[in-house]
């Protein structure tokens, strides 16, 4: 890819003094990246963390690859942006008004130092040493950096002290020494840093990502008095959210809808989907069901939407939920059935059936909120048994807590006297917890034809032999 002529002429920019002769030497973009560093002296004091992020956010208009190596310096990979902005000069000119406005807004000195080179470390060092330079060729780095004092390097103080002790005060002193000897004597950190400065090695800087937050509110002229009014207002905000998600290639699986009434009381409604979505129609449908359940006592003056958790957009058909929808031929925009149900009934009203390997029937089978299911993909295969098979046949319906049965002539009764058909089957477990279980289980039948799973509590019968019944109903063979 050839650099455009404007980019190659950037060396003539008045504030960027050309060192080599880029205008005559094509190949500005020979390397993989070209780094533009901005140093803000006003942010050097400690405590300024957020301003540099605000400034970085402004730089997103010229490149997505932004790095924050320190609280007063930014490094931007602008290689792929040079053609669009007409070279370094055009890019710098594009950024300048926004940066100056932001610095004024932050009440900081409207001053910053720019430097650009094929090396990130070199650009940062040049900007930090207040050298407005544009170095277009990697070969030119060595001579330009040679005059920089070692005390300015981003190195450990001990290494700097050792270098000074050896009479090495400038980078040019180091250039004269063999790299292998430097590495042997001063360690890997120094040699790696020098390689980075010369563009021979990539800098390992963590890329900065802007934290996305969508927060919008709307205050209508007329107060919203019915759920339909609220839905109309919410639809406007959700359309904005949809546009926001499309812009950032994101999807969301939860958002918070805030309602403020005339008494300035705030009500928050949390909407969440099982799979991340973009479509505002899904959120609206969930909101409609939520509003049916929500008691709104007074008119609503303001509606807001806050969404701060995002996931990367998954192209159509790649998501398990979408593929399942396609499998069943349903509308893509339709929400998952369980999401729809949980929107009205509540998240804690839909359960999946859990299966534990335990001899205590109550502990072996219980419900769990459906969201705790690990597999998103619908499981076609049955869970593989790991060898645990409950001894004897157990009923499909179980009482949450065993129900004590009355007795007639020491025989258990449930609606009518019970006839024991099978049993006993002894279950003794949980002795290590102090709440041990000692039961004899029977299959019984009453005169109505009901087949029941009952047990005789041995522990209880020993403790209270004659006072109360020791027969309990545990389940029903439906």
């Amino acid at each position: 890819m050839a650099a455009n002529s404007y980019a190659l002429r950037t060396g003539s920019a008045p504030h960027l003094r050309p060192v080599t002769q880029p205008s005559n030497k094509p190949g500005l973009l020979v390397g993989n990246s070209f780094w533009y560093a901005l140093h803000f002296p006003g942010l050097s004091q400690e405590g300024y963390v957020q301003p540099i992020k605000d400034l970085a956010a402004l730089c997103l208009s010229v490149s997505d690859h932004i790095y924050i190596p320190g609280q007063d310096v930014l490094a931007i990979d602008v290689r792929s942006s040079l053609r669009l902005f007409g070279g370094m000069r055009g890019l710098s000119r594009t950024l300048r008004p926004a940066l100056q406005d932001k610095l004024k807004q932050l009440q900081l000195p409207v001053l910053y130092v720019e430097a650009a080179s094929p090396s990130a470390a070199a650009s940062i060092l040049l900007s930090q040493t207040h050298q407005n330079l544009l170095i277009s060729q990697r070969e030119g780095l060595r001579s330009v950096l040679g005059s920089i004092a070692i005390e300015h390097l981003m190195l450990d103080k001990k290494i700097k002290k050792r270098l000074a002790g050896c009479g090495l005060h400038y980078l040019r002193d180091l250039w004269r020494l063999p790299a292998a000897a430097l590495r042997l004597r001063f360690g890997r950190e120094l040699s790696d840093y020098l390689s980075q400065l010369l563009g021979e090695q990539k800098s390992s800087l963590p890329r900065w990502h802007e934290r996305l937050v969508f927060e919008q509110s709307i205050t209508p002229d007329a107060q919203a008095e019915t759920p339909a009014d609220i839905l109309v207002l919410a639809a406007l905000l959700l359309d904005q959210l949809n546009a926001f998600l499309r812009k950032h290639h994101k999807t969301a699986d939860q958002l918070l809808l805030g309602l403020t009434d005339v008494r300035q009381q705030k009500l928050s409604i949390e909407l969440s989907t099982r799979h991340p979505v973009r479509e505002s129609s899904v959120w609206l449908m969930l909101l409609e069901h939520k509003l049916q359940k929500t008691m709104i006592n007074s008119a609503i003056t303001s509606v807001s939407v806050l969404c701060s958790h995002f996931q990367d957009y998954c192209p159509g058909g790649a998501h398990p939920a979408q593929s399942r929808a396609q499998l069943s031929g349903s509308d893509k925009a339709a929400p998952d059935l369980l999401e729809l149900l949980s929107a009205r009934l509540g998240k804690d009203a839909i359960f999946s059936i859990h299966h534990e390997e335990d001899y205590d029937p109550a502990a072996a089978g219980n419900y769990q909120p459906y969201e705790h299911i690990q597999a998103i993909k619908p499981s076609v295969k049955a869970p593989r048994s790991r060898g645990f098979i409950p001894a004897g046949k157990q009923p499909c319906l179980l009482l949450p807590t065993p129900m004590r049965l009355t007795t007639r002539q020491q025989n258990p009764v449930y609606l009518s006297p019970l006839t024991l058909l099978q049993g006993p089957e002894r279950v003794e477990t949980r002795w290590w917890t102090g709440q041990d279980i000692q039961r004899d289980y029977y299959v019984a039948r009453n005169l109505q034809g009901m087949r029941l799973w009952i047990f005789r509590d041995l522990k209880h019968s020993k403790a209270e032999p004659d006072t109360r019944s020791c027969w309990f109903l545990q389940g029903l063979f439906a």
Partner: protein
Amino acid sequence: MIFPDSPLNKPEDKVQQLLAETPGLWRGNHPHNTSVTHVGRQYSSRSVSPGLVDLFGAPERHSELDSHSVSTQSTGFSALDQLLPGGGWPTSGLVEIVSRHKAIGELQLLMPLLRMRSHQPQSLLWITPPYQLHGPALAQSGINIRNSFVIPAQTRCNNALWSIEKALQSTECGMVLAWQNWLGGRVIRRLQMAASEGKTLGVLFHQRPTPHSPATLQLELSAAPDSDDGHRQIGIRLLRAKGSHRQGEIRLRLPG
């Protein structure tokens, strides 16, 4: 004038004659029908499409009763297949199961169906079962419990009905099992329409039968004494079947 010996004096013969004269009189009329009492039986004698074989080999059958094709699948019990029009459970629609008492084997009756449906991609929804479903027992019976979701009995009646309707309308749900003490005809009709829309099978467990129910199938279950060899039995009475006039009662032996 009435001739006592005339064969047309018998009501069946009169109906047969009417059927011959007016082919579209009965909804269950079919060219192969020769007798009213056999109207329903021609369902079970239908040829099985070789492509429609489910996971466990139970064939799906399509009756050609009228323009509305009714698809059925085997119940897993040959006696019940013979009783039901179409030779099995309908693959979609609403089935009402009426039993005055619980725990007489109503779920055992559906086990082969549940086993098959739970292994399909669509999920199984249990709405307000009277007691907690016991996972190990269901898994032991071969039901894929990972594909099953439960709305517990504490749910309010209107929410439960709303959930049944939404689940029946959804194509993500393969089967809905719901327990309600009693539902009116209008509600049943609405649920039946939802099931038709989503092509989903819904099974409603009642304690009292709904008169003139628009459900696809209405069965009444009753407890029966155990067989001589100690096997559990259940009495099944076919109250109503959509598109059929068949009625009957059998005693079914349930697997151990």
